[in-house]
């Protein structure tokens, strides 16, 4: 049973990490507590839902939904934050504006589509579980693990191995200096918004596929865990988000499995507080995206 519980924890942790990847990028690089992030997650899931209902196969619907979510994120970032960035308003103002926006977006979506849970068309992905060594895993779960590994790899390569990544890291560290060095920060901010939004959208599709429940508030209910993961992992730290996500998932599952399911949140949050008390910038935190 321990092996299956560890696998459960790993899978849950992978969904947390998948959700948090774009979030930590947006947060760490753009230095904005952007509360609209959860909405891109919802948007991705709904876009994939409509595409697959119209008959598109998953391998087309997933990237299309991710790209569209990325575009929505870029647009909203431009609408909500350029003005504040230009005025040099402090980060609390941007937190507040994204809070207002996300309230309006979720409420608007519920008013438009209704609050009901929807499902992706059955048969989109084989529902049966594979069984080996007494462990069970479904295809959707394998997809989540693979996507998580692939995206972490891609992001690390982008941030560490390319000139673009260097520019992004420069901007994360010192936006003013980066601008002086000739980096087009506005265009780069748009690009980072796009990548974060696309990651959120892809996460929404895969997690919606796994739990088979797509509804307007699905992104909202991930936000609290998302915050925990990016903070424990260190803001802007991709690798940190992966490790923190997996840890959180495994701790929750093991608490529920071996201590008491009623205590799983309390234990997870108590550990979060302890981590921060001993490591004030998270497990892997230095400052912002220096390490990416």
């Amino acid at each position, binding site marked *: 049973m321990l092996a299956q519980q560890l696998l459960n924890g790993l899978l849950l942790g992978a969904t947390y990490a998948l959700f948090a990847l774009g979030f930590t990028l947006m*947060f760490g690089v753009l230095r904005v*507590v952007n509360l609209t992030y959860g909405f891109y997650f919802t948007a991705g899931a709904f876009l994939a839902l409509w595409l697959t209902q119209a008959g598109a196969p998953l391998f087309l619907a997933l990237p299309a939904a991710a790209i569209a979510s990325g575009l929505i994120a870029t647009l909203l970032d431009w609408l*909500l934050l350029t*003005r*504040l960035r230009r*005025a040099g*308003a*402090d980060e*609390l*103002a941007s*937190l*507040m*504006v994204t*809070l*207002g*926006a*996300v*309230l*309006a*977006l*979720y*409420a*608007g979506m*519920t*008013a438009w589509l209704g609050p009901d849970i929807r499902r992706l068309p059955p048969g989109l992905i084989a529902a049966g579980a594979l069984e080996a060594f007494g462990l069970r895993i479904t295809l959707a779960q394998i997809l989540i693990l693979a996507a998580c590994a692939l995206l972490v790899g891609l992001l690390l390569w982008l941030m560490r191995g390319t000139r673009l990544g260097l520019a992004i890291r420069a901007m994360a560290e010192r936006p003013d200096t980066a601008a002086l060095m000739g980096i087009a920060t506005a265009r780069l901010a748009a690009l980072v918004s796009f990548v974060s939004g696309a990651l959120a959208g892809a996460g929404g599709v895969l997690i919606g596929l796994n739990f088979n429940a797509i509804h307007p508030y699905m992104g909202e209910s991930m936000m*609290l865990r998302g*915050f*925990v993961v990016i*903070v424990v992992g260190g*803001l802007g730290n991709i690798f940190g988000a992966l490790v923190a996500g997996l840890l959180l998932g495994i701790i929750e599952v093991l608490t529920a499995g071996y201590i008491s399911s*009623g*205590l799983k*949140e*309390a*234990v997870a*949050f*108590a550990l*979060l*507080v302890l981590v*921060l*008390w001993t490591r*004030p*910038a*998270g497990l892997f*935190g230095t400052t912002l995206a220096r390490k990416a």
Partner: protein
Amino acid sequence: MAWFDDLLFTYQNLAVALGVNGLLALSMYVVLAVGQLSLGQAAFMGLGAYSSALMSLQLGWPFWAVLPLSCVVPVLFALAVGGPTLRLNGVYLAIATIGLGEVLRGVYLNVDVLGGAMGLSGIPEAAPLWLIYAMLALAVLVLWQVGKSGIGRAMEAMRLDETAALSMGVNIRRYRLATLCASAVLAGLAGALSAHSTDFIGPNDFGFEPAVTILSFALLGGIGSPFAPVLGAWLLTLLPEVLRPLADVRLVMNGAVIVVAVLFLPRGLLAWRMPRHVRPGRAA
């Protein structure tokens, strides 16, 4: 005066909420005033609400004794966790305080005497409306006086530039802990007053969402003076009721109003800063 009674009846809960949310906004304001994004207000409020409700329900104590004691548990909690927590900055502090709130929520859910998911009901409605507003007025007055004094200047200095404040001899650790305790007192009072005017409290009244709502009171109003956060709280409390006729798009409008307000008034609705006269010979 039957129509006046009806008016009072119709808006009694709203009137209570305006007073209580005003106190919560001030509780947020005192920590923001020293530049700390500490989001423990909902948790402090919960401690005040639960401890006061237990004193009324289990021990049967009168409200005049319960109310001052309702601040004790939140302050003790603030003192217990303040040391290690207040070393944190920015979002790290925000998440740590949210985390503490979630731990407390887990306690309310799992401890039988606290009612679990059913919460506590049958709390005597012993808090008169005038008392809520008297406490709010008193809090504004005290914060105004403190703000004008040397303490207020030191706090302002901490918010703007911690290193400079430190080098000028401001004891930052002491100030941070003191403001956290002040925040706990205000939120604890708000919790006790609200528990004793609505009959029922439950664990979900003090979680993540209320914490964010309380933050938004202060951010929308501004932190230039103690009046600003109260104004923000009042606007955000009234807005959903005013927009009631809009039915299912009212929350959309609610959010849209916030967006527009912040975009055009990024320093808050009331950006005016309270005057601080520098008096020679009174260093902080």
